[in-house]
């Protein structure tokens, strides 16, 4: 295992080292000590390595991740795993606002709570939150799955496209054009797979599914006076 101590080396050096590890690397496991809430730790990774961050992180940890697994042992600041392409980011604590924003792929697991705008504009990423999520989560979410074992805040899925939202607890309110939908066998299968990948102790049957009513897709002439 390779160790990078952020009390000794700069963020730029840490990220250059990690970004240089491609598919053929034989240095596959890394740990980062003394993160002390720094921004942009382990961003832009491009190979199948495993990175463990021993502590809490600031903005944008694991952003743009491709193929790598990033494990944050503390809590994460705003924009964790933003625009992730593939791979996995796991947070043992809580995540601040817009976790997984605009993510294209991969799996984001938050073992604590996520705050507002979780999964905003997600485009294919899967997100599993063991706790609760805040308001305006999955706003304009396009595709992928958001799974929440706890409760969701106000305006869940506002202006949603085709992402699937699964919530086990209560939803404070649904956003514009977001509705509850029937849970079909294929959805239970997706949920079972994601819950298992995220080490989540819950049964698929306990969840409700929400999705787009598809009423905002096309311009409606009856709304012309609103503009």
């Amino acid at each position, binding site marked *: 295992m390779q160790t990078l101590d952020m009390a000794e080396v700069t963020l730029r050096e840490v990220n250059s080292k990690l970004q240089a590890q491609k598919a053929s690397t034989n240095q596959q496991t890394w740990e980062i000590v003394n993160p*002390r*809430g720094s921004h942009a730790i382990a961003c832009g990774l491009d190979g199948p390595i495993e990175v463990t961050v021993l502590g809490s992180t600031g903005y944008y940890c694991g952003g743009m991740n491709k193929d790598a697994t990033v494990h944050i042992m503390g*809590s994460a600041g705003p924009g964790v795993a933003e625009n992730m392409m593939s791979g996995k980011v796991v947070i043992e604590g809580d995540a*601040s606002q817009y976790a997984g924003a605009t993510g294209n792929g991969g799996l984001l697991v938050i073992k604590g709570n996520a705050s*507002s705008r979780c999964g905003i504009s997600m485009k294919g990423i899967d997100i599993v939150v063991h706790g609760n999520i*805040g308001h305006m989560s999955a706003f304009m979410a396009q595709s992928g799955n958001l799974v929440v074992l706890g409760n969701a805040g106000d305006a869940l899925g506002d202006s949603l496209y085709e992402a699937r939202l699964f919530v086990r607890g209560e939803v404070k309110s649904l956003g514009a054009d977001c509705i509850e939908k029937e849970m079909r066998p294929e959805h239970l299968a997706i949920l079972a797979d994601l819950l298992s990948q995220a080490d989540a102790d819950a049964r698929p049957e306990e969840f409700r599914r929400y999705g787009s009513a598809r009423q905002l897709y096309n311009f409606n002439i009856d709304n012309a006076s609103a503009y």
Partner: protein
Amino acid sequence: MCGIVGLFLKDRSLEPKLGSMLTDMLITMSDRGPDSAGIAIYGAEDGDKVKLTVQSSHPTEDFNNLDNVLSQATGAKVSIRIIDTHAVLEFSDKQAGEVRAALVELRPDIRVMSAGDLVEIYKEVGLPKDVAERFNIPSMSGSHGIGHTRMATESAVTTMGAHPFSTGMDQCLVHNGSLSNHNSLRRKLRREGITFETDNDTEVGAAYLTHKMQQGSNLGEALESGLDDLDGFYTFVVGTKDGFGVVRDPIACKPAVLAETDQYVAFGSEYRALVNLPGIDNARVWEPEPATVYFWKH
């Protein structure tokens, strides 16, 4: 952006370190707002004396013999402690009205930063490190304090545009965000007889809270009504004589982290600001909820 830090001590043995802990936290937040910085510190009470922290851009002339001039004009016994561009005047609270009136008349260029039994506010243009050094903040002790580092968006980079803003006796407010209805609200408050020093949006927020409290609300109630009347983005941290409060607007896009241990409650715009606090690894750390008033009292 802007950066906010705050520290409310429960363990009195930490009080001598308050200034140095707050300074360290504030310097960490420098890159959130490098144009001006300020700190409000709640120090020791001195009998029935009241403290007036004042500022001048010509301190040599304005503070020269100020204690004697004010004492002669009012009959009060006024003492002065000059710290760079600021000075702390202390006098009996029974003569507070006369002293303030004499100050306006005799030294009209002097600005009042704060008034109260405990609070002292120091703020200037410049980096947190430089501002803290100028006023020797690390040497100050106290029970609680709030710091702010500013990236100006709504008004000019001036000493008076820096935070904290005083919101009444022993009260202060700092702000990360921008209020969008500050002009209309300022006009309304002016009609109620409130005066303003700047075009700054946060000063309107501070004046709004003061006005609500003058009408009988306590700080918690004033903050609650602010959720309806203040439009825009804000994370506010407020200080009172014995308390410390946090509130975020309902959208809550301005960051905030709270940490609590048996020794203290700490606020930071980011977790980075808190990492040197004692016992932070075992503290309860959380993000305050939107549109929720948090308040601690001694």
